[in-house]
């Protein structure tokens, strides 16, 4: 066990406590000791007591880290969220599945001083490495370490296996599951379908970083139709196109979860139904195509790969076309370094360009956003369900 009492600089996370345990009971005992060891109060200048450390009471975060390096990356992100981060984070890494059962836990307390006058806010981080069969019984390992009465979020970085035993054991105790669909292998479509089924199976909320990252796109697209003169065109869309970055144009090699979410969001908000699901073409660079219905109008959808240095599957632009009373509206939303730009033309007359500066969000920002938006997200759920229907 080690204890640091060095004064903290505002905003700078400090490792205040570090110890190790070899059993669940040992971990629980060490977690209990942290709050006895860290001084909660100190004498103030006029004899009163001043609070110096407070434990954050936000949520339990359980991270399923398939590999050790994923655990380290996640730990760095969680430490960086000090002051507004989860009360207790359990980073679970299974190891040596065929060996004997064992458990190794590193227990840490990280604190941060939000400002000079404020108390330090602390949270606990437990690295759990589960050897042998221990790694197969996650509910028995994780459940005793959760702080009761706080919501449980399961963050599954990398490629989650929603049909695995781990998922069946962990998801019933979770309130929310965090994933990043843009990092899945292949085109990511099978994962999308499996994920869309989770809310009904386990009564959990889903938050996909891939969808959260698109907030600036959605703001930009919506803003075009804030103009009273353009709003009526929304009921007359007759073409939706999304270009995404690809390396070789071979079908199924670039993850299309993000482009798919763009279409799903539009379809879900505008009440479109699927006539022909979106399917991959067979030719290189042919992308994906489908057909939606909006009222009596049929709306072709095309996801087109484009050669680009951007990571594969990154949305490069979203294009919308609408025809109303023989007037034609063309909207193109394109990504640039720090945001997106909306260009539109009405009957070929360009409308003023508008930029939506919004730096690309890091995983830490998205995690913080998800932690704070603790409530239900019916729009996100609807978009996910629509995405699953688009590819069914």
């Amino acid at each position, binding site marked *: 066990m080690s204890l640091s009492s060095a004064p903290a600089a505002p905003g700078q996370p400090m490792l205040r406590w570090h110890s190790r345990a070899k059993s669940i009971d040992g971990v629980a005992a060490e977690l209990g000791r942290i709050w006895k060891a860290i001084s909660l109060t100190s004498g103030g200048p006029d004899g009163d007591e001043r*609070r110096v450390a*407070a434990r954050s009471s936000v949520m339990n975060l359980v991270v399923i880290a398939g590999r050790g390096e994923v655990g380290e990356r996640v730990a760095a992100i969680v430490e960086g969220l000090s*002051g507004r981060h989860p009360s207790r984070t359990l980073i679970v890494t299974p190891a040596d599945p065929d060996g004997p059962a064992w458990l190794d836990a590193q227990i840490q307390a990280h604190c941060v001083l*939000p400002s000079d006058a*404020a108390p330090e806010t602390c949270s606990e981080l437990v690295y759990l490495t589960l050897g042998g069969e221990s790694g197969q019984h996650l509910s028995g390992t994780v459940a005793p370490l959760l702080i009761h009465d706080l919501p449980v979020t399961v963050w599954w970085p990398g490629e989650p296996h929603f049909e695995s035993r781990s998922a069946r054991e962990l998801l019933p105790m979770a309130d929310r599951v965090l994933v990043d669909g843009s990092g899945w292998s292949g085109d990511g479509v099978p994962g999308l379908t499996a994920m869309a089924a989770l809310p009904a199976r386990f009564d959990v909320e889903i938050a996909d970083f891939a969808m959260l990252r698109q907030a600036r796109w*959605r703001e930009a697209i919506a*803003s075009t139709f804030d*103009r*009273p003169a353009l709003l009526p065109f929304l009921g007359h869309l007759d073409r939706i196109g999304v270009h995404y970055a690809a390396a070789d144009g071979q079908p199924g090699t670039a993850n299309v979860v993000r482009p798919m979410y763009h279409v799903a969001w539009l379809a879900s908000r505008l*009440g479109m139904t699927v006539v022909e699901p979106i399917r991959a073409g067979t030719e290189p660079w042919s992308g994906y195509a489908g057909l939606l219905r909006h009222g009596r109008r049929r709306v072709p959808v095309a996801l087109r790969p484009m050669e680009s240095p951007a990571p594969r599957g990154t949305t490069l632009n979203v294009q919308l076309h609408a025809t109303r009373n023989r007037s034609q509206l063309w909207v193109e939303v394109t990504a640039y370094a720090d945001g997106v730009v909306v260009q539109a033309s009405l009957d070929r007359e360009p409308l003023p360009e508008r930029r939506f500066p919004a730096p690309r969000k890091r995983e830490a920002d998205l995690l913080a956003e998800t932690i704070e938006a603790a409530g239900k997200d019916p729009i996100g759920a609807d978009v996910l369900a629509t995405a699953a229907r688009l590819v069914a």
Partner: protein
Amino acid sequence: MSTKAPVAPAPPKTIRQERLARDGRRRRPSHPAGVNPLREGLRLERVPDPHVAVLFGATGDLSHRKVFPALAQLWRTNLLPADWALVAIGRRPYDDGTFRMDIAESLHRNCRVQLDEESERQFLDRVFYHRGDFDDNTLYDSLTAKLEDMHLEHDTRSNLLFYLATQPSAFPVIVGQIGRCGLDHEVHAGGWRRIVIEKPFGRDLDSAKRLNREVLKVFRESQVYRIDHYLGKETVRNLMVFRFGNGIFEPLWNRRYVDHIQITVAESLGVEERGAFYEETGAARDVLQNHLLQLLSLVAMEPPATFAADALRDEKLKVLRAIAPPSRHDVAREVVRGQYDKGWVAGVPVKAYREEHEVDKDSETETFVAGRFEVDDWRWSGVPFYLRTGKRMAKRASEIAIQFRDVPHRLFADANTDPQPNLLAIRVQPDEGILLRFGSKVPGLGLDIRPVTMDFTYGTAFSTDAPDAYETLILDAMLGDQSLFTRADEVEAAWSIVTPIHEAWLDQPAPAFPNYAAGTWGPEDAEELIQRDGRNWRRL
């Protein structure tokens, strides 16, 4: 050949006929007309309509420090419509170019988040300077012509938001001129007209009534947005969520459980460069009449039936009307005024109020006021509300403290320490948050009780940067939401409490000012005021 007039189908009479008739109709769109369905679930579910804002007093301090930075933040975060423009009206000899340079400097100095170059350019390109005197007809005639052109050029659909950030004496003149030119007339097909008016709204009950009459001769009440920037502060807005979004507090929020309530708005600053203004205003007019009484009404009001603007304001008004206007005797006994002497604030020596720039050497203007008020209604009868505000106090702190009653029975008579009554403190600024104090047993063999606190601080619980109050309020005015603005009858009700205090002071002998040292918590009389009831001001 006979021609038959077409027979209109008989209207459905039974529920079956009605259902069948409805079935036969075309399905309605899932969203109402004029609503952008893509906005659902985004940061703002509605953005302001395209419009032109007309800012009077655009070269003044308030515009530079608060209004332009707030507008620029709204632009930066894409909360202003693309079709938006601002006409800045002032007396100084600027043109568009020089005025924009001046505003750019202010933005660099006062914006909480700096705009990138492109956003700043786009924002400034939408600002147009229009020079003139507020009482000059030609200003308004040329403004009318300019606005017509701008509506065409910027496609702003005749929507106009007037913002009066001028000296209060100019309000009636400007409003009258707007009326003369017909700029207040709302156009049938869209084309709303709204006016935002800065405080102070009058300097007593009569002048407030006169001003209301002048404004309401031209605008309808639904077009008028009287700003009290305290109502835009995040913690104040949270007060309603805290009270009515949580089930456990409201049952305790009454005379049965609450002993008393303290509301403090303390400033460590002096009058700075506003000596002339402050000489005519004083703490009661500057803070008590608006901020303090608004906070009181939010704390004491009944739950409104809906979150609609008038439902909220009706409840706040009931509270203000339940406070009896103080008699001269009440003022002498229940209200304390003070003026700061020289002293030390934050380790720095500061001068006395009477030594400040543009302040009379024999000034009788109060820089501190404290009072004991009672809300005579079913919920609060007998519960005192202690209000205090002052300049050059020990520190800047605004807080609402709800002190609960003591336990009815001393069960722990043998304990070394008596349990202190519970306290709920809502910190408005700084360190915005909420604190709940309760007693806890000190671990050990004995039975000692010590107060402990549960402390929620905005800064540590949420990473989101709270908008400035002006951003919130200006955006609400653009959206047509009056919830956070004061209504004419509210303003008058507040003046009917404060005006008798001023009148009573006029009848009293000259006060023995200065009566508190800068850097303290006010005059000793203020301590006596509360100690008479066996209570103490909270140490902040």
